């Protein structure tokens, strides 16, 4: 039955790891701006020299 203790410790450890990940992401500023990234991801990366050929419309 000592398996129970191992499981408890393991589950707490995993939960702690997630808490650590959360704190890390807050510290890195992931929650500072919750709007801009959602817009940024929709932009096309257009590195070609002919910008005129770009016809995609993003609305």
């Amino acid at each position, binding site marked *: 039955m000592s398996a*129970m203790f191992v499981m408890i410790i393991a589950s707490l450890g995993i939960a702690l790891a997630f808490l650590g990940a959360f704190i890390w992401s*807050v510290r890195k500023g992931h929650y500072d701006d919750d709007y801009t990234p959602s817009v940024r991801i929709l932009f096309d990366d257009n590195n070609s020299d002919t910008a005129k050929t770009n016809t995609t419309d993003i609305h």
Partner: protein
Amino acid sequence: MEQDINTIAPGDPVVNIAKNKCYHCGEACAQDTITADEHAFCCEGCYHVYDLLKVTELCDYYAIDDSAGISPDKSFYAGKFDYLDLPDVNTKILEFTDGNLSQVNWYIPKMHCSSCIWLLEQLYKFNPAVRSSVVNFPEKKVRITFEAEKVKLSELATLISSIGYEPYMSLNDIAGEQVKKWNRKRLYKVGIAGFCFGNVMMLSFPEYFHLGKDAFDESLRNTFGWLNLALSIPVLLYCASDFFKSAWAALKGKYLNIDAPIVIALVSIFSLSLYQIITGTGPGYFDSLTGAVFFMLTGRFFQDKTYAGISFDRDYRSYFPVAVSVLTGKAEIRTPVTDLKTSDIILIRNAELIPADSVLLSPEALIDYSFVSGEAEPVRRKKGDTIYAGGKQTGPAIELEIVRKVSQSYLTQLWNNESFSKQKEDQNQMLAARINRYFSVIVLIIASLTFAAWYFIYKNPETAFRAFTTCLLVACPCGLLFSSTFTNGNLMALFGKNQCYPKNADAIERLSKIDTVVFDKTGTITRPDDAEVVFIGSKLTDHERAMVKTLATQSSHPLSRLVVKSLAQVHSGTQALSHYIEASGSGIKGLFGSHTVKLGSAVWAGAQNDREAAMDAAHDQHFSRVYVSIDDISAGYFLVKIKYRENLHKTIDRLHDHGFNTYLLSGDKPTDQEYLAYIFGNNAHLYFKQKPEDKLAFIAALQEKMHQNVLMVGDGLNDAGALQQSNVGVAVSDDINNFTPSCDMIIDGKQLSRLPAFINLARHGQKIIKASFAISLIYNIGGLFFAIGGQLSPVLAAILMPVSLISIVGFTTIASNVAANRILKN
């Protein structure tokens, strides 16, 4: 530059390309605009930006949003940002530098759509020295990392300005008093409390279901108890620290605030649980403890919602330019405003703000004091006159000699008034706090009586402790706290959706108590930059109208701009204008081939003789007239009449219907008195020629002598004192990202007619809080009934608490949404 416009020669085939709409900024534009690459542009500035984007192959900009561009500021001049390279200023503006790479975080008020994000993040294409630029859209900021050796800060600012996004820098930035709005600590606290709450809940499950009593279960239960204790410590010491701090601060001030009973409950629950764990007598109530803290923090997180990008607390420094041109000999040096000394000679250009009280050295100046005094029309000043800080020059550049330092100027004196150091937020006055005071005392008395009865009468110490704790737990004032935080938080979001932005929840509560509404006039109930313009006189030919428009376009005088606006449909002539002359305070004159066109005062245009003009002016003061003469023959005049906001009459009527007193405080001269008297009712309270300090004193008198709760609606610096003194100061702005004086609420100009509805909604909010308090009271009484009897097991207590919380949160959310739908619909 002139050549660019004139490339469209007469008879040029102007093709039918998206007529009347500028490809860059979307403004309506006439036929004679610049055309390039089959696109039309309303002005040179817009074309310039387009050209710049084309050269750097950034025309994708136009594919993201149609015509989203911004025409660059026309009053921009070379060297405007030179002061940024001064070492003093430089170090304060830079966020970070290691000598090679530097970083700035600039506020760009004009950022408004996804195209802006895209373009601002492509800055490296304009200048390779820019390493990266990252936009934070809600805060309207762009963080630029650049190589300091290759590009100067001033060059960077000029580059951004040239594509239409001028960064805004104020004295506050230089003074280094930037407030960090987003507090990550609150997020850490919510996260940690949530983590601990979840795990404590899980570890408490065996306890809820009364697992077996063999030796292993016993040791497991013991371990879980200690683990729960360990998990609760960070919640109590870190997550709940704000409650302790606020309660302690209140206690030091010798009063009890809303956090005090929470702290008492938290401490007593924790110490009882600690006692049970140590003595092995029970599992403790750590689940309830962590759960309560987690829910309370979540509630506050929503309530403390701040609108990034909107600023409520501004003082005079936000309005002043960072630097002005100081003339030493013939050289012009950009100097920070804070370094200005008396007897410095400064150069002020068109539309620049005068930072300090000074004496005019140039022959003449036309000063627009509208922001300071509310006076709508610019006043003429002559050489030797004193000009007060806060005025704006309209017309050609002028030279001034400083008389008083910035910090001692007339305008800044207003900020020394005591009402600016007064805090309006008095936690103790909030509804929840007032109810809570009695509530927590009663709960404490009931709990103690129960404890005493079990301990001394029935001689049952164990039940006594349990009954005492469950009493506190079940009847915890948290329910009350939740009802006000969630109702106010939800109301703030609803207000925000309707373009009315309260500063905090307390502002909503104060709004519900308002009984008097005071309005400012200029810019508040009138529409800025818009007026009814009618031409009276002999009918002008198309050609003549075109000449008038072209001439008026040259001047930046407000009246000229209004005349141009009224002639939007007229195609500017193709004939070149020459010999343009602007006489400050009189008018403008220009030559079109052999025709002389004059615009301006009656005397200037030679329309009538002096006496007649003076009589006319006395007759209808609220009209401004712009006289037109062509070849010295009077053709008539433009009648310019101020426009009031739509539905003004209905709004005031509705306020009267609901029993509000209304007043009008205007810094302007008494214009339109009859119309305003009609709108504001028969016993009209209209006050004119009010100086900023008069307005402040007036509000204070209403509050003290008449015991009224005053709502002040204003827009400019001249209202700053009154807004601060009033119970609720509402700033009206036609662009919420513009600069409004310090206030409690910012309302979009178009929504001003809904002011009565907003007040009504705030009142409903108070009713909802009271109703949800009644609901939690039912839970509490039911729970208490069992708790006093010592029959309430921890399971039931643990279930009852979240259920009551969820039902209260649900009720407040639904009720406030329903109320908002009903009230704001019409």
